[in-house]
């Protein structure tokens, strides 16, 4: 099952990248997430590993993930190492006038064939899609807030420099 959610954000790719590169932010904007914990020495970057858990229905589902792509400031991708088989990607592209398009791609597979596997994938997709939509919306809100804070900081610095 593959699910995509995207939106336009009033911020340049660098601001979005800085926000997404910090693992501490994930608990703030990812809907349904209950754990995003650094595993090992690398906090972020290629090869960084995290233990993640998302509440979907009756269970907290997740496992160990590893960052497999880290192309600043455009792409972050991960694959699951243990737990539910899945891949995820943040794709950030410039969209003109200081805006960017962010796309959250998520693909997962339920182990075990048969009708139960197919029904589980479809049933879980309802929750996953809803959570991804909320995630993208909350990410947009937080990044735009961060962008306004940065712009205000720059204006203050410019005013202080003019006075000096």
């Amino acid at each position, binding site marked *: 099952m593959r699910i995509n959610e995207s939106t336009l954000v009033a911020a340049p790719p660098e601001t979005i990248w800085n926000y997404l590169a910090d693992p501490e932010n994930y608990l703030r904007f990812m809907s349904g997430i209950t754990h995003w914990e650094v595993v090992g020495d690398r906090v972020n970057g290629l090869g960084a590993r995290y233990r993640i858990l998302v509440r979907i229905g*009756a*269970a*907290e589902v997740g496992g160990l993930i590893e960052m497999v792509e880290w192309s600043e400031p455009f792409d972050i991708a991960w694959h699951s190492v243990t737990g539910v088989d899945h891949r995820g990607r943040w794709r950030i592209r410039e969209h003109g006038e200081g805006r960017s398009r962010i796309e959250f791609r998520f693909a997962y597979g339920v182990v*075990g064939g048969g009708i139960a*596997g197919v029904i589980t994938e479809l049933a879980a997709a309802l929750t996953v899609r809803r959570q991804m939509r909320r995630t993208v919306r909350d990410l947009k809100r937080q990044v735009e807030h961060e962008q306004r804070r940065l712009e205000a900081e720059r204006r203050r610095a410019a005013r202080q420099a003019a006075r000096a």
Partner: protein
Amino acid sequence: MYYVERPKGIRSAARRFVEERVSNRLSAHLEDRDPDYLREALPLLWLISTFYFRAEVRDIGNVPADRPALLVGNHSGGNVIVDTFIFSLAFSTYFGVERPFHQLAHNLAIAWPVAGDLLRKSGTISASHENAEQALAAGAPVLVYPGGDWETHRPSWRGNEIDFGGRKGFIRLALEAGVPIVPVVSIGGQETALFLSRGTRLAKTLRLDKLVRLKVLPISLGLPWGLNVGDFAGHLPLPAKITIEVLPPIDLEREFGPDPDVDEIYAHVTAQMQEALDGLAAERRFPVIG
């Protein structure tokens, strides 16, 4: 030169064959657990838990992540112990199927043709002190239901009561193994059928306690049988909402000293579980619906 023992006759060979089959079905071991099988069973368990039982497992992070523990649960649902499957699902998705996890069950549960195999492969082992010790020594959390058949067949109107029937073996097990006790409190299981009586007198009259270690012969109303005596073939559980809460670990030596009193620990554990069960019961507005 090899000496091969030849069967003395068709009758003795047949008897040995049947004995082996029966003893295999009546036992389950640590190595029977199969993570791949469990992984493939999780989607179906998730579907049933999510949509049929609207299950919720709270605070599973209270199970120590890096050491063994004795998980002590209240037993509900007659012979169809849906809360065990729901807890196993929650454990496996939270910690991963790779982490060993065992549950103790009565030999009769393990002997069932299909469910028994599922239980074995998901880590269920025959209920005995030695098996539990072995699993804990191997570093795995072990789930036990001290109340056993006594508690799981209590009448539905006593569903919100912790009733271990005075069984304290789990405390000695935790003390000997030096592991903490983690209470696991569940509600809703006793609403999957209308449990009427444990049938203790009937079981005694039929000498079931002597023959198959059963002190009860429960009587209930359940699907698809209607009146169900014994619940040996199980029943189709009603879609009762199941909620499970995992309480913080109890470190016995730290809380009760180096020479703890078993009765005191028993009173403490059951009181804590009763308090949590009362809290869960207060959240419910209707039977079955939750």
